[in-house]
């Protein structure tokens, strides 16, 4: 069998393969995990204070890895510079990428600075093997007075609010790439950006649940029940929103009487009764929506760790299936000829499972580096309640116990 993503002969092919399935998936995780961090920064939910730094790091690592998917999928990746020098915005949805992504990177760097500045200063003052590193990360500003702390907090609120906007823009523009392609009946829908953003929230929250629990287990710390259960509550809320969006999509896409011929034909032929019916019903709706809701409805399952893990894993699988059903299913509907276009994802080589795993691997390594660099661990904070009070009195860092080279 000839495989569309690999060989590309004949008239119709699937040009956007599994890497482009992964691109909106990763950017959705970026947006979702950023919104989780803003629960503490913007919405002042004290419960999530311990989670916010971790969520910022996860979001930033995935943000750095996200463009690797499109870069690897591009046939002329060396020409990426043309995106900067010949940007075609506001006409081309892809051309928005460079503005939104660079803006988001800049914003995340500011966010990292202000979120970790106080702790960096305390560690730089406290000394230790890495004090120079913390000195650099604090950009030399050693002010720990309450005034500065208050400024940091207010800047962080502003940055996080802007960040939510950027996260929505970043993910919404990807939805717009598909929604604006009128040649593909299953893509050309104004619902697309909204569906993408809602499922981004769902997948980001599920990812943060998994990362939080795994990180706590790894470091042998107790998992905060209020954080884990709170995340699951938000998860269910957004799953219900996602269910609503899927219902609207079904009503406006799958029913011949309500929609245009090619849209309904594609929906019926590919998703409802065709090759991807099992992905649509089994994974996107089953694992991604109904399984988590079912577990949530049984209190005993909801409160167990396995229940939470299955909910999160199901959501992560279901959202990936949703991306597949958008990107691939939209392309296997032929434009000018008959029948569905065949596509098989290769294991190795261009546009393969191997490259996708590589991108996730890069994201993981970047996350490890960031987690090593930034003092996100709540249980290792150098400042105790007494030292904070002392700081507030004197306006300088008071180092408990271990001391160090105070410059």
């Amino acid at each position: 069998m000839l495989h569309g993503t690999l060989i590309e002969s004949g008239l119709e092919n699937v040009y956007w393969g599994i890497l482009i399935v992964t691109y909106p998936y990763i950017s959705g995780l970026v947006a979702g995990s950023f919104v989780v961090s803003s629960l503490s920064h913007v919405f002042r939910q004290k419960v999530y204070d311990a989670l916010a730094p971790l969520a910022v790091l996860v979001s930033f690592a995935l943000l750095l890895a996200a463009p690797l998917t499109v870069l690897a999928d591009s046939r002329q990746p060396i020409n990426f510079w043309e995106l900067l020098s010949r940007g075609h915005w506001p006409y081309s949805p892809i051309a928005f990428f460079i503005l939104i992504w660079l803006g988001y990177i800049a914003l995340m760097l500011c966010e990292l600075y202000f979120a970790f500045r106080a702790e960096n200063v305390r560690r730089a003052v406290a000394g230790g093997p890495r004090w120079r590193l913390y000195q650099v990360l604090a950009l030399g500003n050693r002010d720990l007075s309450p005034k500065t702390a208050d400024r940091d907090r207010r800047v962080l609120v502003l940055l996080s609010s802007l960040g939510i906007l950027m996260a929505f823009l970043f993910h919404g523009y990807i939805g717009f790439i598909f929604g604006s392609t009128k040649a593909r009946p299953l893509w050309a829908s104004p619902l697309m950006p909204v569906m993408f953003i809602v499922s981004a929230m769902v997948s980001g929250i599920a990812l943060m649940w998994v990362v939080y629990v795994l990180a706590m287990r790894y470091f042998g710390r107790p998992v905060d029940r209020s954080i884990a259960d709170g995340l699951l509550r938000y998860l269910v809320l957004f799953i219900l929103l996602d269910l609503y969006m899927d219902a609207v999509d079904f009503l406006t896409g799958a029913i011949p009487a309500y929609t245009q011929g090619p849209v309904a034909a594609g929906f019926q032929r590919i998703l409802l009764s065709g090759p991807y019916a099992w992905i649509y019903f089994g994974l996107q709706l089953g694992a991604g929506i109904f399984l988590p809701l079912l577990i949530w409805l049984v209190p005993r399952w909801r409160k167990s760790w396995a229940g939470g893990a299955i909910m999160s894993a199901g959501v992560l699988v279901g959202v990936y299936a949703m991306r597949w059903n958008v990107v691939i299913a939209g392309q296997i509907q032929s434009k000018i000829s008959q029948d569905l276009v065949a596509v098989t994802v290769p294991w190795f080589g261009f546009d393969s499972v191997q490259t996708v795993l590589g991108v996730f691997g890069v994201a993981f390594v970047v996350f490890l580096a960031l987690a090593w660099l930034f003092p996100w661990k709540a249980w290792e904070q150098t400042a105790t309640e007494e030292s904070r009070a002392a700081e507030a009195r004197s306006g300088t860092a008071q180092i408990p116990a271990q001391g160090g080279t105070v410059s």
Partner: protein
Amino acid sequence: MEQLQPGISRRRLMRHLVLVAISVSAAGTLLRSRVRAQTVKTVTSRRRWSGEAAARRLYQTKPRWASWTVPEFNQPDEWSNPTAWMAAIQNSRHVGYVHDNFDRLYPVSKLPHHWGMVIDVRRCIGCQACVVACKSENNVPVGVYRTWVQVVEQGSLVSDPAGAVVTDQGRYQPNVKRFSLPSLCNHCDNPPCVEVCPVKATFKREDGLVLIDYPKCIGCGYCINACPYDARFFNPIQQTADKCTFCVQRLDRGLLPACVTSCVGRARIFGDLNDPQSAPTQLIGQYATTRLKTSLGTNPQVFYIGLDGVLAEGGADAFNTVYPYAVGTNTEEYDDLTGRVLLQTPTGGEGGTP
């Protein structure tokens, strides 16, 4: 506890924010003015199509790959140096090009030429000579097509005890009509492929041609997905998007496109749609013409005479395709039909049976 003095820090914060805002707006203005300068340049510095003078000038600097010279195979030529032949293909010294505001294109520029094609479906015999000529003229690699002729059947098999088609399930009588449907890039006046290109590598020339600046292409595939006619493809050799150019290299030297020249039934008629006396204009005036997928608002510039309305809108269920290569060799139907496909791949591998 010291009294908070938010005023001072707020002032510092505001100062920083103002600095950031100024630099962002300065950068935005720079970018914006670049875009505007390009647009203005297109509109104001347009040059008249200098016709014969331009053609003569180009003849004098005739590139070696031009089709009327004796071909030297396996020799380095201008195809291996894109900047040399791109200048000839774009021909931007004579014709401007745009990336958007297509509605303003013709009223503003008033260029003498607006190229278009009329395809008389009644005269097409499905010989595929145009496909071969196109491949030969344009070095189109194996497996992809700039123009192709689908031979399609419309209708159905009717169950009939005395039918000519014998199957395991009984005999059928075909109640069908057979069409040949020559297809190529429609050089739309409102081309979605040009709008979506993130690097402006593809553009619409002021005389109507939609072309690609290959060295600028990043190979993202967006234009290929955005084309409703599937006229674009990835060139497996140069790994960029590629498509029909109306044989721009011939056109700029006063020749007709290769598919038009080679058409034995003279089903393809090419000419200037701005010229009231040209053959396509006369045909469009005298016959009822159809264009493909007009519902998408792309305003295509290839007109069909005698084309069935169902075929014009296309869609998977509009017809049965007779020539399977035109279906695409990677459909499930083709697998069912042949069971075995062997084709050399660009990467050196080989497709085989599963």
